[in-house]
């Protein structure tokens, strides 16, 4: 969309105005995330820039909120729970989701759209409704306030992402490839690992990452299905924001931003790899 050489003045004004507007929108998107980073090094317990910070006075900055995060048992318990719950729910979601996606991608699959619609619905149903239903049902069967209960709940919510990403890698998959492998003497196991796995692996990993983030970022369901013993990082942040706002939350937020940068990079690399394998040009 470069500016053509013969552009009129009006077009020129529009061109720059348009780019300025876009710049502002991008700023709106990214500024809130950037702003928490310096605030987390605040020396005073407020959510705002102090004079000392603006003049780059070292006394205005401190690491004490990070120290607070790393030494506080409440936060450390939350970190531990977050990882336990996210890892196990991701494993369950990825295993079940991948297998289901393989089935859904077969041309012989009956009622494909309907089944897909049902399997994806945990992503669409409002969290509070899932939370209410799970709270009632898991209470009845004794899974409320247990790690297992929260893991199962999060796994259910993560599966749609795995199904979607893995199915996407199989779009346009030539099923004659598996037949070719079979004819060339490969048994089904070998076919699976040599032909299918390399193809779907990027989708599986990015689906797993989505499932991980879904669990890692989830706070509504865990607050109802779980109890204090299952409190996660977002839970601790949520009650911190409602109770007493301390910049420790911003320190945690900064660490989470770093985590999301890592996740984003991984998913992007995988997507490109997947496109390359399937021969789709950018």
């Amino acid at each position, binding site marked *: 969309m470069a500016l053509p050489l013969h552009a009129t003045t009006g077009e020129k004004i529009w061109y720059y105005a348009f780019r300025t507007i876009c710049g502002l929108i991008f700023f709106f998107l990214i500024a809130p995330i950037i702003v928490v980073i310096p605030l987390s090094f605040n020396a005073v317990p407020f959510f705002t820039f102090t004079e000392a910070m603006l003049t780059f006075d070292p006394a205005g900055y401190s690491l004490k909120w990070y120290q607070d995060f790393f030494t506080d048992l409440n936060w*450390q318990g939350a970190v531990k729970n977050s990882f336990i719950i996210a890892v196990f729910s991701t494993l369950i979601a990825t295993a079940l989701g991948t297998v289901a996606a393989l089935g859904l991608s077969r041309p012989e699959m009956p009622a494909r759209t309907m089944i897909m619609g049902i399997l994806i619905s945990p992503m669409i149903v409002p969290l509070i409704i899932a939370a209410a239903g799970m709270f009632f049902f*898991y209470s009845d069967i004794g899974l409320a306030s247990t790690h297992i209960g929260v893991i199962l709940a999060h796994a259910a919510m993560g599966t749609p992402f795995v199904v979607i990403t893995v199915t996407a890698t199989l779009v346009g998959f030539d099923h004659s490839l598996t037949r070719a492998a079979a004819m060339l003497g490969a048994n089904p196991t070998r076919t699976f690992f040599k032909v299918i796995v390399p193809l779907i692996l990027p989708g599986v990993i990015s689906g797993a990452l989505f499932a991980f983030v879904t669990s890692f970022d989830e706070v509504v369901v865990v607050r109802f299905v779980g*109890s204090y*013993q299952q409190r996660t990082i977002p839970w601790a942040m949520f009650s911190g924001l409602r109770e007493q706002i301390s910049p420790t939350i911003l320190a945690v937020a900064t660490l989470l931003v770093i985590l999301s940068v890592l996740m984003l990079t991984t998913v992007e690399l995988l997507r490109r790899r997947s496109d390359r394998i399937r021969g789709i040009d950018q």
Partner: protein
Amino acid sequence: MKTLFKKTLIATAVSVGVVGTASAKDLVIVSWGGAYTASQQNAYHEPYMASNPDIKIINDDSGNDAVAKLRAMAEADNWSWHLVDMVASDAILSCDEGLIDEVDHDAILAAAPDGTPATEDFGNLIVSPCFIPQIVYSTTFGYRTDLVKAAPTSIADVFDLEKIPGKRSLEKKAINNLEWALLADGVAPDQVYDLLGTDEGVAQAFAKLDTIKDQVIWWEKGAQTPQLLADGEVVMGSTYNGRLFSVIEEEKQPIAMMWDWQVFDLDGWVIPKGAPDKDEVLKYVKFATDTQRLADQAKFISYGPARASSAPLVGKHATLGIEMGPHMPTNPENARNTLVYNYEFWADNVDDLNERFTAWLNQ
């Protein structure tokens, strides 16, 4: 950085230990977290664990939705809590629903040092057969000394926008606000609840609240008013007296108390119906609610001990070294006009009036 790293390692190790070694000797005690749990840790848990090395007390900060979680436990008959700290109204509700045990107070609680039986020592604070009182707290007002035009002296001043302009914060529910509105409107204290039982009385209370509605910030958590006062977002606001104490005395903010028509409420222990190791729980409760322990808690937080016999033992704050007596809601200076939470009335009317209150808020 090195020490930070080391501390992290230790903290992680400790936290792994805490979560990882749940055994029969753990007591999971549910409370409200923050400074309140800390006061219980200092006054009750630490000394108890010191004399009972085989017991480990685990604090669970689920106080805010304890009744909901207890219901869930009851439905599954799967109980993971040993003891719960509850406000009296929640205890009455849970007792109604059969979620917690009725107790024989004289049989399970220590007598006062002079031999007065527990039921007499606690007196009429035992508001439910399931409830073991612990502290008396009050919901009252704090104001910014530097931001108000004139210092408020009575509840009527809360509703007086001319005398004291500016935003005020009130709790986002019907309880207390309706009573205060009627009192400020000149209703005699002994008629407040009779009046609130009628549609006209409720309408009168809302009409009074209407006069300040657009100047109110509604809070949901006890920490919000102190924060709003400290930030200068409001010039005055209601909250629990202990929260105001810490923002005034510990954080040295320019805030003062306005005790007129403070509402007394109670907080205490309840034992979940299916709590495991009930013998151990009862042993702990007997210790934690004796005369000395209740007086000790007042060293860490400005809530009044529920036993009459504890009052003379209340001394100085553990770290600030100031006399706690004058900061107690029960101090005669502060308690000239007080309202006691009407448990019976609110047990019947809480759903209806909260619903109406929310409808009123949304108009």
